[in-house]
């Protein structure tokens, strides 16, 4: 039943490939920009491409995940949601469908970004176990942001206002260690970037893929991502029930 709705969301994504294209092209362009244009000017202590790829992957998944908000907002204002709600199926299954489609979309986008990065000279030192751990953390992170996107989609008045979250997610990574080490930032920005959830996630993925030290950051990232997932899932399903019980 939930599988049917996942199939639906995936099909809708395929039929309307703009979102998918954006969530692949955007990180690719950004990666190229950083590697070829700014890369020479930023000193990270390693080959810059090895520094920037993990950040790009996280940025890409964050952006892609929040585009769930647009798919959900689109559904909420159309008649289909009434039909689904009058069927004997679990209420928020339609949200689960969109979240699962988002995970699929992001897996695809991530694979493409990684392949492109390797072509551009990215040389990960990760073992199979490191890759599995990194992907596991990313999955958790994507799930958390997709449910956050679903929550935003449920309350958004229109598809356009739902897209605000994605734009926010596009800029948040600049206030993290995605592109430049945080110690190069002014003090107040460094405070923000070291304590927001994206930085530990990026640091952990970077550590796993390129062998930079992780330390306790891995646990911090895990706690952030699972906490965020729990909170956004609860929020999305609660908002959905509220919105649909008039």
């Amino acid at each position: 039943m939930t599988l049917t709705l996942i199939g639906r969301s995936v099909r809708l994504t395929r039929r309307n490939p703009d979102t998918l294209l954006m969530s692949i092209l955007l990180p690719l362009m950004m990666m190229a920009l950083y590697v070829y244009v700014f890369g020479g000017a930023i000193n990270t202590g390693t080959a810059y491409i090895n520094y920037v790829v993990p950040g790009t992957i996280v940025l890409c998944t964050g952006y892609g995940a929040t585009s769930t908000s647009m798919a959900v907002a689109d559904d909420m204002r159309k008649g289909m949601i009434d039909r689904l709600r009058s069927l004997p199926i679990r209420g928020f299954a339609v949200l689960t469908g969109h979240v699962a489609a988002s995970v699929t979309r992001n897996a695809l986008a991530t694979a493409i970004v990684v392949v492109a990065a390797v072509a551009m000279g990215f040389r990960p030192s990760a073992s199979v176990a490191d890759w599995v751990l990194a992907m596991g953390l990313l999955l958790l992170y994507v799930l958390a942001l997709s449910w956050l996107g679903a929550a935003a989609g449920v309350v958004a008045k229109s598809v356009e206002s739902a897209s605000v979250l994605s734009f926010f997610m596009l800029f948040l990574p600049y206030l993290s260690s995605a592109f430049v080490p945080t110690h190069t930032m002014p003090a107040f920005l460094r405070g923000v970037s070291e304590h927001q959830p994206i930085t530990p996630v990026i640091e952990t993925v970077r550590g796993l893929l390129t062998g930079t030290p992780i330390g306790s950051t891995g646990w911090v990232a895990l706690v952030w991502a699972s906490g965020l997932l729990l909170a956004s899932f609860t929020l999305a399903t609660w908002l959905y029930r509220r919105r649909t019980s008039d």
Partner: protein
Amino acid sequence: MIVEVEGLRKTYGSAVVLDGVDLKVAEGSVFGLLGPNGAGKTTTIRILSTLSRATSGEVRVGGFDVRREPAKVRGVISLTGQYAAVDDEQTGRENLVMVARLMRLARPAARRRADELLERFDLVDAADRRVKTYSGGMRRRLDLAMSLVAGPRVIFLDEPTSGLDPVSRTTMWDAIADLVRTGTTIFLTTQYLEEADRLADRIVLLSKGKVVADGTTDALKSQVGGDRLDLHFDDRSAVERAAACVGGHVFAERLVLGIASDGSAAHLHHVLDSLRQNDIAVLRVSSHRPTLDDVFIALTAGVAA
């Protein structure tokens, strides 16, 4: 009674949308909820199909309480809303198979069911086109087909023909008539007396959230009279004196007095004679078939001649 509603009230803040509605629908019958825009028809359907909660009152559908056992109610009903609930980016067939799968049909059975319904609703040629390329009539038919996937006991149709051209409307009426033959209970809303007349066994007339009439279509029509007489005058005082003399509803801006009539020559004679005896000059007389307006005039203004 497959649908039982007692003392149904719905308020949004201080706005009272449904104000103590009672109705009963017998299994296998066609029930028409008739009323103008804003009467509360959609609100009623949304409550009966578990999409919205009643503020107070008892609502049972298929023997289940909509508030306490919504999942059971959903198992016996299906809903075709006022706006077609179809996915534009999926094909007609994909839409049908999806609903069948959601109703827990196995994949081969779901495909077969979709084929049957495409055939029945004359959508075979368009089956593999995306719904966004469909005409309004085709969307409505697909919408209805999707509601029939699981063979519901009660089907709710909210203004099934609004916005359709006359040909599509007739096709839709035929589809509904077919459904009746299969024994499905139909609960439909409409703004058109003609539609309710043609399809429904019983009609409830809703006005501003209240039931103003309840009965068979024949009973309703005899209350309204067969026709409406419009008497045209050349000034305001003539209209009002005429109304005082023979009754009826004054359309002040048009200087017209509307009177319910059985359409007989005798009734016309009687009206004109009364006016002449009172020295009220009538410019012109026209007569037309009753509209929903007339039903309201007759039932809410107490003018039934």
